[in-house]
């Protein structure tokens, strides 16, 4: 078992030597985060995969509407060193296109479909990135974009139950006998008829 901190150092030098990093952050001894340019992502992922990061743990997006950008997040993991690496890259929000990483990590297929469904990112290179996966017959902008209003959509699409306006007690007679009957019934259920 090698020392975890030296693993981080090794990855840091590897990444710093090969790529122009916009930002690098060591979160703790098990997690490192790098911000790269969009074009470097594929090369970085292949380099990491050949260095033991065999598993793509997650692929997702973050929406930044004020910057007009969508941030892609790739998390890869190394089983031998217990190390997670996050790769971030920002792409254009109005025309979000990111080449698929299917040749490097075949398991990305469904993550990319999900990202397309919820954020509207296109993944050329993945043959069925635009097939529906979770939302069936979706008819609005992708729902995880920040400018999507779930409440307005829900109000428009689903029938609501109108809350009662008047909560006055209409029956002013004592509820005691009814409560007793209900308690007896509940007791009966609890004990199976036994006292």
């Amino acid at each position, binding site marked *: 078992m090698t020392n975890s901190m030296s693993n981080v150092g090794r990855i840091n030098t590897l990444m710093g030597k090969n790529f122009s990093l916009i930002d690098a952050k060591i979160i703790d001894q098990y997690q490192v985060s790098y911000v790269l340019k969009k074009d470097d992502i594929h090369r970085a992922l292949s380099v990491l995969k050949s260095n033991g990061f065999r598993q793509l743990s997650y692929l997702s997006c973050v929406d930044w509407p004020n910057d007009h950008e969508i941030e892609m997040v790739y998390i890869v993991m190394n089983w031998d060193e217990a190390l997670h690496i996050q790769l971030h890259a920002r792409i254009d929000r109005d025309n979000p296109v990111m080449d698929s990483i299917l040749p490097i990590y075949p398991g990305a297929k469904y993550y990319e479909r999900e990202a397309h469904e919820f954020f509207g990112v296109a993944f050329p290179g993945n043959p069925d990135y635009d097939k529906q996966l979770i939302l*069936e017959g979706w008819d609005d902008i992708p729902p995880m974009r920040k400018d999507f209003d779930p409440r307005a959509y*829900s109000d428009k699409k689903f*029938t609501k*139950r109108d809350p009662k306006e008047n909560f006055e007690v209409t029956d002013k007679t004592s509820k005691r006998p009814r409560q007793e009957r209900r308690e007896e*019934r509940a007791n009966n259920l609890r004990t199976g008829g036994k006292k």
Partner: protein
Amino acid sequence: MNSTRFTERNKEEIDRKWWEIGDYFRRNSLWMLMYCTGCCAIELPPAMTSVYDMERLGMGPMATPRQADVLLVTGYLSLKTLRRLIYTYEQMSEPKYVVGFGSCTINGGIYHDSHAVINRLDQYIPVDVYVAGCMPNTESVMNGFVDLMDLMKSKKADGWKRYHTNYEWYRENQIAALGEVKVHDEFHE
């Protein structure tokens, strides 16, 4: 031997009596189909096992929709699940009853403003009994089942008849929410 001749009225009377008998046996031996969509399903294990022992009310779990009498919808329904639920409900043989669990089936509960979760279940399939609460405790779940039996006895649990008479209305609501009820599933096509 004389052949028995049924007049129209006589036939109705006999039908009614057979329904009485059928209902008596049916309400004392209910087979449930549990569509465990949400967290309320966690109330079923204590109701079914030795703590509350549902078997003594004559209720038991059933594996397939075609053999079941009661459909338990335990919790929120996303559009994707609703589509499957309608399939399941329509497969069940009649008479069939629906019990809605928790506030999610009543008015959407904590998911009332979600883009994917329906608000009122009774717009899409008829519901006979609601068990309110988020989540309901096991006593009220059992109470709901007893209520269902009472309703069957007094012939008020007629959701499946309402589904026939108001089928157009239900179908309209289903289409409005789902677009298309048919399931397109890439794994089975």
